[in-house]
């Protein structure tokens, strides 16, 4: 990059953490020997949990449907191995701190028999709706970590007439290289998958954004994309969070996604490179999503690298395969900037897990927080242009509404602010806490609204009942009076007659 670009074209937002991607990224892909048992959580995507359709004791084949999608936004779950279903329901981790999760346990019979698949010779002859249907049936969700059902996004893109597909090969999180690995080793699948997605959403071009710290991936993808003029490989500066949809869209197209709007409304749709490869598998080979490439990395790992593993494999087994040279001081699902801490390794590999990091004591140490020195580093780093220090000070003072006025809701939780803070203030923790509070408040408001509506209904009903009752009483009274009058009249008449 020239000096000019460095000064004027370099994004002004974001941070540049040590990427720690190598040597793990350069180690050839390894394949995990299939585990004896897999645990498939029913809820490993955005939306409704899947509903089991198998029975305990049932024999299943690899790729067989275990649980079907439930609701508009959901995804089905398929068996990653051939074998026997041994349990359905809560899998309680043996440790007290382990959260229970609903899962289907399958005992591997090591025959590796696949279900009957339905490969498609020419996906471009299929209707876009058919591609979406097949992708949904294969359980493909966003593999970059968002885990949003891919087919739902196809439908959205089609409806809003999206013109540009953005293929996200940013992978800006430090330590992770699973997307890099997919692009290096399976570039053809990624490009083919991207073209199928284009067909599904009706896009005219695809822009593949790859951070320039992955020259091997860029080279491989350029070769794979060469025959297709509509697919363009676009190296982008390595800068966290380049892999965030909004920032990648801005960098590649110059467009900003308006606040409270979806990317499709400005004519673009973003899919991750690994998701594209999964779409290729689902359409061309009819294979549902039952395995993925995951980066095992971190200072406590002996032989870090990328592993192709069946979904449902326990994190402990993955770590054991790569070897641990120290007891991990911290386990993280995902990358260090946005990943979730894991309390133990008896958690299965899920669709959205791009990496498992085992940090040694040195990596896990974050210095204690000090007072804010108002240095403004957080403001400069925020890719959304927010004022983290102001929001945090409002939240600390309990003034949630003031934090909302600073557009807390626009925060993408990327962690740039907390990363750069020289006083190591856990800013994102404040924001997550506040967002949780606000969501709870919203729910409570809905609840009171509903209660109020019920109460009002009840009062109205009581009033109506009372009114009906008094009307009835009045009618009865009138009837009685009329009857009396009639009787009196009759008596009079008989008396007169007598």
């Amino acid at each position, binding site marked *: 990059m020239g000096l000019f670009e460095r000064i004027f074209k370099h994004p002004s937002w974001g941070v540049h953490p040590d990427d720690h991607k190598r040597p793990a990224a350069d180690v050839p892909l390894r394949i995990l020997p299939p585990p004896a048992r897999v645990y498939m959580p029913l809820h490993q995507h955005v939306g409704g949990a899947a509903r089991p359709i198998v029975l305990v004791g049932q024999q299943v084949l690899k790729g067989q449907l275990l649980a079907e999608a439930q609701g508009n936004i959901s995804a089905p779950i398929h068996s990653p191995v051939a074998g026997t279903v041994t349990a359905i329901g809560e899998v309680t981790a043996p440790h007290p701190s382990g959260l229970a999760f609903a899962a289907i346990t399958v005992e591997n019979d090591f025959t590796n028999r696949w279900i009957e698949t339905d490969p498609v010779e020419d996906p471009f002859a299929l209707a876009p709706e058919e591609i979406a249907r097949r992708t949904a049936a294969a359980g493909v969700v966003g593999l970059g970590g968002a885990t949003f059902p891919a087919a739902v996004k196809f439908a959205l893109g089609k409806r809003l007439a999206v013109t540009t597909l953005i293929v996200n090969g940013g992978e800006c999180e430090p330590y992770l290289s699973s997307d890099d690995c997919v692009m290096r080793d399976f570039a053809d699948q990624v490009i083919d998958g991207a073209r199928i997605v284009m067909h599904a959403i009706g896009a005219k071009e695809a822009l593949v954004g790859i951070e320039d710290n992955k020259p091997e991936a860029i080279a491989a993808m350029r070769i794979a994309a060469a025959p297709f003029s509509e697919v363009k490989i676009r190296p982008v500066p390595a800068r966290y969070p380049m892999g965030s949809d909004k920032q990648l869209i801005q960098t590649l197209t110059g467009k900003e996604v308006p606040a409270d709007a979806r990317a499709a409304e400005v004519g673009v749709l973003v899919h991750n490179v690994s998701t594209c490869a999964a779409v290729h598998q689902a359409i061309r080979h009819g294979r549902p999503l039952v395995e993925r490439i995951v980066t095992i990395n971190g200072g406590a790992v002996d032989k870090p690298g990328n592993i192709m593993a069946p979904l449902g494999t326990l994190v402990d087994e993955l770590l054991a395969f790569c070897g641990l040279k120290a007891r991990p001081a911290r386990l993280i699902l995902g990358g260090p900037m946005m990943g979730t*801490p894991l309390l133990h390794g008896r958690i299965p590999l899920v669709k959205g897990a791009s990496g498992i990091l085992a940090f040694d004591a040195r990596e896990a140490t974050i210095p204690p927080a000090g007072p804010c020195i108002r240095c403004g580093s957080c403001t400069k780093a925020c890719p959304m242009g927010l004022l983290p220090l*102001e929001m945090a000070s409002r939240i600390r003072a309990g003034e949630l509404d003031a934090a909302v006025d600073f557009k807390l809701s626009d925060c993408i939780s990327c962690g740039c602010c907390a990363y750069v803070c020289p006083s190591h203030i856990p800013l994102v923790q404040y924001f997550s806490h506040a967002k949780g509070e606000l969501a709870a408040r919203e729910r409570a408001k809905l609840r009171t609204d509903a209660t109020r509506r019920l109460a009002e209904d009840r009062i109205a009903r009581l009033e109506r009942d009372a009114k009906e009752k008094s009307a009835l009483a009045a009618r009865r009274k009138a009837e009685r009076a009329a009857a009396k009058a009639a009787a009196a009249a009759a008596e009079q008449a008989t008396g007169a007659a007598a």
Partner: protein
Amino acid sequence: MSQTIGIAVAAPHAATSNSAGRVMATVMAALAPATLFGFWLYGWPAVYLWFITVAAAMLGEAFCLRLQGRQATPALLDGSAVLTGWLLAISLPPWAPWWIGAFGGLFATVLGKQVFGGLGQNLFNPAMVARVALLISFPVQMTAWVAPLPLFSAGAPGAIEGLSILLKGLPPALDAVSSATTLGFAKTEMSRGVDLMASLPNAPALSWLGQRPGSLGETAAWLIAAGGVAMIFLRIISWHIPLAMLAGIALPAAIANAVDPAHYLGATAHVLSGGAMLGAFFIATDYVTSPNTARGQLVFGAGCGLLTWVIRTFAGYPEGVAFAVLLMNSLTPIIDTYIQPRIYGRDRKGVPLEPVK
């Protein structure tokens, strides 16, 4: 491996290696050359004064932390108290008596910073608060400038003699070396009815090398500027405040001087003297008391510069930096409220953008 690992701390699980202490240390390193030059220029009394001021500032900080029942060490080690004392020391007349430094140092950290709630809470720059308090309380000592008398040169006070100057004030024998700063000289002469055309040729020479009377560490304008530029390159500060402030002084000075050179000093004299460089690079850029956004910093810097020129030119005090910075400090919250960065996907007013295909 089924035992629990670590604790459920939220992301990010990585942090910059930077720290508040490191920021302060870098600023001090940038300040060191000018300070050492000041030591050389003004000799032992200046060295002693610097130590006393810094020690007093630290003492004040430690005392307040103790009062709050907090451990003194971690907060003292972040270096902010040292830096405050240091900035105050180098803006004092180099041969000021010891109690000026002691009083100023204590004042800076106790009343300038800790009463507001400590690091990050103060509205005004502590060093400048102390300097203004000293200037108002002890105008004589605070304007007793001396001509440079470099260390080891003939007539310069030795280590022992320096100590006595510090304790007893200027001995009559050395009274001859007392002198006026460029700005002070111009002001006095003008009040006597001598205009600049006549007085300037006799004024103490203005020099980039700092061989002139002035406060302890601010006379070597180029060393200060070099330190400041280094801080910009190290990304400790951004260029906005220094540039805006220097422009804010230089532009009105140049215009006024072009119109009426007999009554208005030129831009060079203004920028090179009276701590303008020190103010622009090290004082106005204080994180706590300056705005957080680039555009806010431009406004703030320009305001500091303009006010400095106005005070120097029209008010009673020949040196305006401290007053100007304090005035602008009080506007910082307002600037921060009105000038905010544009949020992604919204216009400057915070309204969501219209979707464009």
